[in-house]
């Protein structure tokens, strides 16, 4: 006789659950009482018990450890590769418009980008990089954004962040960015001056081009680089207004002259990169300077002194400060 016909069909599900350890205590007891008086169900119950025992064998069965070990090694290699490509980002509203901040998986700052009015990752240059895995994520980046806001409020003069310079395109590019990072807060220099600083005096245009691809604006302060005339040429595409604003935050004035704003070279304190002094723009020493484009210009005395400079002993900017 087939057991399917002879067991009590209305309790089958509970019977199976009970035999395989899946039943509530009440159900289990009810089934046990039933089994005592129903032989076919009892038989069926025993078969399910046996099945449960066999299942226990399957449960203990595992592939050889080396098989799992090899699978895990392959996984770890792929995971390592994925982590390397992972970039965490957040987009924040700021007085400069939407700003994206991106970190590497290890927490080094990878990119800062102005997105204008779009709070959308699709507006970012990073999406064009097929070698990156972008993930939106939070807490660490929040701190960076707070520091950035402090900078914009004039409450912080340094963004002392660990940087990941993977987006840097060449050794020259790297050298330009490193030299740019050394320009002090509240000072400007020229593209030509920067070209001299990296040992390529004739490469002012290449320097400007390299700064165009600064992956970390503000952090690497390319806004502190202006034309030799003082004109605020180019910034983050065509965001010259932003450049003037950042300089204003640092105490560097800009004036309107024609279409392009510029820094008033004649009304700023100046110094040679190698010198430890700062001078009035009228200092007689300056007349003998061979490469005026290399001069560093400071918006005010406090900034020059914060950069470690002392007043020139000839022109005494401390005694005859410029009218602000």
């Amino acid at each position: 006789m087939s057991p399917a016909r002879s067991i009590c069909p209305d309790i089958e599900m509970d019977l199976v659950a009970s035999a395989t350890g899946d039943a509530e205590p009440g159900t289990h007891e009810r089934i046990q009482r039933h089994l005592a008086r129903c032989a076919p169900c009892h038989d069926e119950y025993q078969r399910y018990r046996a099945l449960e025992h066999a299942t226990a064998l399957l449960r203990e069965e595992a592939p050889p450890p080396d098989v799992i070990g090899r699978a895990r090694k392959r996984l770890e290699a792929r995971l390592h590769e994925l982590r390397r490509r992972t970039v965490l980002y957040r987009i924040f509203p700021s007085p400069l418009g939407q700003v994206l901040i991106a970190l590497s998986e290890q927490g080094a700052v990878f990119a800062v980008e102005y997105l204008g009015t779009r709070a959308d990752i699709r507006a970012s240059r990073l999406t064009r990089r097929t070698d990156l895995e972008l993930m939106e994520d939070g807490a660490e980046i929040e701190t960076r954004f707070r520091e950035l806001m402090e900078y914009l409020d004039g409450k912080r003069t340094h963004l002392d962040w660990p940087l990941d310079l993977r987006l840097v395109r060449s050794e020259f590019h790297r050298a330009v960015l490193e030299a740019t990072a050394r320009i002090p807060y509240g000072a400007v220099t020229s593209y030509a001056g920067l070209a001299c600083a990296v040992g390529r005096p004739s490469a002012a245009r290449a320097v400007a081009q390299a700064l165009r691809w600064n992956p970390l604006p503000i952090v690497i302060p390319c806004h502190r680089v202006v034309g030799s005339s003082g004109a605020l040429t180019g910034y983050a595409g065509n965001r010259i207004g932003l450049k003037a604003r950042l300089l204003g935050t640092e105490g560097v004035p800009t004036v309107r002259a024609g279409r392009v704003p510029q820094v008033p070279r004649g009304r700023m304190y100046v110094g040679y990169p190698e010198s430890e002094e700062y001078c009035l723009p009228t200092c007689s020493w300056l007349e003998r300077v061979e490469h005026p484009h290399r001069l560093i210009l400071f918006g005010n005395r406090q900034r020059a002194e914060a950069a470690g400079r002392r007043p020139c002993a000839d022109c005494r900017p401390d005694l005859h400060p410029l009218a602000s």
Partner: protein
Amino acid sequence: MGHQPFETVLAAHHAEIYRYLLRVTSRRSEADDLSQETFLRAYRAYRALPADANVRAWLFTIATNLARNHFRDDRRRRLAHAAAGAQRSEQDDGPGPEGQTLFNEARGRLACAVERLPLRQRLAFVLRKIHDLDYDAIARSLGCSVDTARAHVFQALRKIRRCLGEMPQVEMRR
């Protein structure tokens, strides 16, 4: 992100997820691919996972989804093959050698019966009986209700029981 490093998650659960996928697919190459995919996906989503989430159940859900997608694509492929007159005969190293002893034989038959289950019943059975997940987690993995999950396991047990019942009851009757 209030939870443990992903390495810890990997170390704790990789072997089990691999075993699950091997049991479900019966092929090492597929268990290999799908377990890799499971953890790469998990890595991508891990930061967004609530700190109090059950990581193990979550990994099983990812693995289950991938397995289901895999079989759906696989069936499509097989149909395409069949249409082209090709015969699929790849049956590479399964979960182990089959029955020299009665002990192994019962085990082998059971494994065989499990392999013949319809996919959802097989997944439910393996999740419940081999990996001991609760029905809530199984329901979430399969995207169904808890009652449906229970019904899948019941149907699976019933089919296995029938399948084994047709054979001589050497090991089953002890």
